């Protein structure tokens, strides 16, 4: 398959079941909601070492938030429910509770309920106040700038992590420009996040390493500087490869995000140095979810 001069590999991205949650952070203005959201989703690029994958899903209009203030929806994914709950609580406590004027709300009504502000309330040292409004429990925790309002719980749902595609380009600036265009379009799709910095990862990994202590190491088959040293997957004209990783609530959500992302890359086309789209997989042995590139773009 070739779209606008870009070859789409007959391969697939391999993804894994994860647990996910969404939270809504509001603040006095969008600037402070965003600061809090960025803090909460910082150091959350990969479960390999961060404990979770998280990112901002989208900015919310005041009409969409529970307290009518500007807000930001964030999503966090982890390999298990226990880990997710721990990450959520730790991050909420250190990054949102601490952030001026912030409030924190559930972003998923259904699912298994996991603590959001439920345990943060103890920071109130007995001065915290509970309010049950329309069946939802909120905690009002006295803090130095006033009150931190947090919904007691949010929903944990089954989700999918690790959807991905690789952008192979003739130069590093061209690869990055294509990924930026893809991310811009993918951020318009609900229920997905691209957890790496700016949504793009330049250090795609393979399973295993020559060093026993490492479970993952650089994906040498796609490293352009190793073309003459390893069993490469790159043709001579490829000088840079970048990857976009997608976590989403459902397979359909990831399908949609991959489609618009790949389309945005292909719209730049061969004329802008984009030569190929590929994807990362482990031969289909590790993850039950397969995202076939050519099927998605058909």
């Amino acid at each position: 398959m070739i779209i606008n001069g870009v070859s789409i590999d007959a391969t697939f991205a391999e993804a894994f079941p994860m647990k996910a949650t969404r939270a809504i952070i509001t603040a006095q203005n969008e600037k402070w909601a965003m600061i809090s959201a960025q803090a909460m989703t910082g150091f959350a690029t990969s479960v390999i070492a961060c404990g979770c994958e998280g990112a901002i899903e989208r900015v919310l209009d005041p009409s969409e938030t529970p307290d009518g203030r500007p807000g930001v929806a964030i999503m966090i994914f982890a390999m298990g429910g226990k880990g997710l709950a721990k990450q959520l609580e730790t991050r909420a406590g250190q990054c949102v509770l601490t952030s001026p004027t912030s409030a924190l709300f559930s972003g998923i009504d259904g699912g298994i309920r996991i603590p959001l502000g439920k345990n943060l309330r103890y920071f109130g040292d007995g001065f915290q106040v509970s309010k049950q409004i329309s069946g939802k429990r909120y905690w009002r925790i006295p803090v130095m700038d006033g009150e931190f309002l947090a919904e007691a719980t949010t929903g944990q749902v089954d989700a999918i992590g690790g959807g991905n595609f690789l952008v192979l380009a003739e130069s590093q600036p061209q690869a990055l420009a294509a990924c930026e265009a893809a991310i811009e379009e993918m951020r318009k799709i609900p229920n997905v996040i691209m957890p790496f910095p700016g949504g793009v990862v330049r250090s795609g990994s393979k399973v295993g390493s020559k060093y026993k202590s490492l479970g993952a190491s650089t994906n040498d088959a796609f490293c352009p500087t190793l073309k003459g040293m390893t069993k490469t997957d790159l043709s001579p004209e490829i000088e840079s490869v970048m990857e976009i990783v997608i976590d989403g609530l459902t397979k359909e959500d990831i399908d949609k995000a991959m489609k618009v992302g790949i389309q945005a890359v292909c719209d730049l086309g061969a004329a802008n140095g984009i030569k190929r789209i590929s994807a990362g997989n482990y031969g289909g042995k590790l993850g039950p979810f397969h995202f076939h590139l050519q099927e998605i773009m058909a």
Partner: protein
Amino acid sequence: MSALTFTLKYKSAQRVDMSPLVCQHLSGMSITEISALTLQSGKLKLRVDELFTISGSDAQEIVINNSVDNLDFIGKDLDGGSITVNGDAGAYLAFGLKSGEIKVSGNAGLYAACEMKKGYLEIAGNAGDFLGAALPGNKMGMKGGTILVKGNVGERAGDHMRRGNILIEGNAGDYCGSRMTAGTIAVMGQTGRYLGYAMRRGTLLLWNQPKLSASFNDCGAHTLAFLPILFGSFKTLNSRFADASEAFNRVQRYAGDMSEMGRGEVLVKL
């Protein structure tokens, strides 16, 4: 199916215990069976059809017409369905209400919504003393749900209240929110003396500055984030509480009752 309607024929000389006439008890019963039920009235047991003309068949939607103030225990322990009272209700209206809704077009007597658990009670007129309170000697009053009173309420509204909302468009008598454990009482009108007497936790939300006891301490003026959410939850009500122009989030906060636990609050609109 039309609503199961009880139209009062005359006002009994004695008070009448209406507790058998709730949706869950009448469901599946024929009009003949309902007619044969008896209601305690003083020392007498009156057949339902002696007091009421009965029509309709939908027991999930009960209407009581020509209701008067000696019909007690209307909607006692109601668990789903609705009861509409056209006229006044006696004492213990919505006693122990579990779920469903009760609407009264007139006034209600003492102990309305006493120990109510959930559901919705709307009183278009006034309510008597001990609205949403606990029975004498009991420690737990209203435990959930919402009460809306469009008129005034008597003394001790929310006595021993534990959870839920009491919304009063008019005035509240003395000892409003006394011995509250938690929950919210909102009063748009004036409040009487000894507001929040011995309250432990909970919120008294007021539109007008009350006369507070010395055991309430001023915590200053604040903008509270939970108030827009609270007012948002009133939007579906047929009430001034649903009016966005009545909502506010800037309040003077008083903490009390310091002679008790002191974790309660009186929030006064600024």
